[in-house]
């Protein structure tokens, strides 16, 4: 699969510090996003710690077989999925222990959504209320489940989705990295198809911008970074009450068969002619 990606983070219009953190490791097709919490600057510490730990763990060469799996892994998962999940467990442990060691950092934590693409296989690991979305043939699908109190109440039929949007408890999470010594990580595997668009974002986006708007922007803007910028601009127009972070990943066709070669070549030729005509 050919992967093109871009990510942007923004302070928003209200906050004075950015507690979000993201990393794109293009060589690995690894995408990690975290939204920190905890007073003072500790949210930033936690989210950066989460992202760094995960990226480092996933990048470590030869860790595949030798890596101690920190969690009970599903045997059917791919090596990458297992490694990603282990990395999230490790990040949780790292943040928790840091908070224990430094009393002033007590209560810091982070949400985490990570995606790792290997060929056509997508591995997702997730904790908290950041989200991963997949846009496929115009159909936007949330791949992750929000671990927030209101989302859980909606799932249980206690609140209606409209009530959840009004609720003052929106920021209450049921799971986050760093809150407990051990944690449950949501892990999922999906198959990617050509023209799929993957998006990771924090709640700073999804509280301000609706899903149809997200789908529309991702479809209209081909450049991933520009698409992320446009979504952030929209969230800021609406008030930008929180930090906003968006990663957009576009999946292209893998094989360049004779058909696409013919067309690709044709287009290149046309572009060349156009340039020649202009000069």
């Amino acid at each position, binding site marked *: 699969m050919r992967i093109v990606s871009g990510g942007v983070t923004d302070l928003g219009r209200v906050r004075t510090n950015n507690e979000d953190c993201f990393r794109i490791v293009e060589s690995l097709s690894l995408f990690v996003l975290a939204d920190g919490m905890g007073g003072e600057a500790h949210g930033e510490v936690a989210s950066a710690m989460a992202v760094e730990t995960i990226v480092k763990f996933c990048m470590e060469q030869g860790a595949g077989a030798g890596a101690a799996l920190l969690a009970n892994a599903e045997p059917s998962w791919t090596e990458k999925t297992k490694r990603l999940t282990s990395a999230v467990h490790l990040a949780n442990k790292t943040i928790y222990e840091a908070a224990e060691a430094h009393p002033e950092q007590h209560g810091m934590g982070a949400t985490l959504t990570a995606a790792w693409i290997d060929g056509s296989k997508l591995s997702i690991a997730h904790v908290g209320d950041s989200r991963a979305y997949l846009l496929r043939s115009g159909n936007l699908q949330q791949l992750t*489940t929000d671990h927030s109190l209101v989302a859980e109440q909606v799932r249980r039929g*206690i609140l209606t989705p409209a009530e959840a949007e009004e609720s003052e408890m929106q920021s209450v999470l049921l799971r986050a990295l760093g809150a407990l010594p051990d944690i449950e990580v949501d892990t999922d595997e999906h*198959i990617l198809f050509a023209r799929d668009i993957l998006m990771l974002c924090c709640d700073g986006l999804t509280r301000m911008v609706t899903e149809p708007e997200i789908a529309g922007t991702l479809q209209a803007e081909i450049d991933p970074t520009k698409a992320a910028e446009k979504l952030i601009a929209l969230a800021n127009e609406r008030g930008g009450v929180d930090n906003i972070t968006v990663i957009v990943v576009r999946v292209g066709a893998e094989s360049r068969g004779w058909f696409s070669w013919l067309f690709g070549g044709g287009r290149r030729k046309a572009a060349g002619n156009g340039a020649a005509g202009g000069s």
Partner: protein
Amino acid sequence: MAKLSLMFEEKTVKEVPVGSRPVSIGRSPDNDLPVDNLAVSNYHARVYFEGGRLVVEDLDSLNGTFVNDLRVERATLHDGDSIWIGKHHIKVDASGDAPVPWDTGRKASAPRINETMVLDTKARRDMLQQAAATGERVQFASGRLKVPTLLVVGGRTDQKEYMLTNKLTVIGKSAMATVKVKGWFKPPMAAQINQRDDGFYIGPGDKMPTVNGTAITGPVRLNDGDVIEVCGVRMNFIFRE
């Protein structure tokens, strides 16, 4: 506790209490108050408490929801009102006490939360239990486990039957597709079925599938027994016990 009684001509067909969770009304059997009549939309309306008052809300139904004689999109209900849906009517008994919604009951004491916070395990358990005590049907379908299944009834595919265990299912010729369609000139990704919190939705891929004979352009929620047709393959979507 408030109560809704579904009436057909002067007979009571069914009664349901209204607790802190909304009561859904519609033709689809998974509603809290199913109304078996073609004039009723699958998910027609719902009734719930809001700020201590009982409210009915029409869910963009085709034939509308009427309170007494007035067509409403949303209306406050009073004791003795009748909600008309098709040829049925629902008598409203609002004489009981309104349950205190767990959320609003908390508002007074809970500080306004701007900062994100995590509940520790105990607080989380308490809060969910408290919430569960006010809702009658907490974990839906906890007793009966139903497996969503696609049965192929026409066309050529690699299997005759598919259990939809993944969040994303693709129907097409691609080697990566869950439902692999065989034959010439079939699209790699003809259609997709996605699992969401409230059910399974079919959406177009390279082709526009039909559900029960109607072509769809956007995601449509699948109901038990729906017939899906795309690129020469005919399938039955069922929930298998």
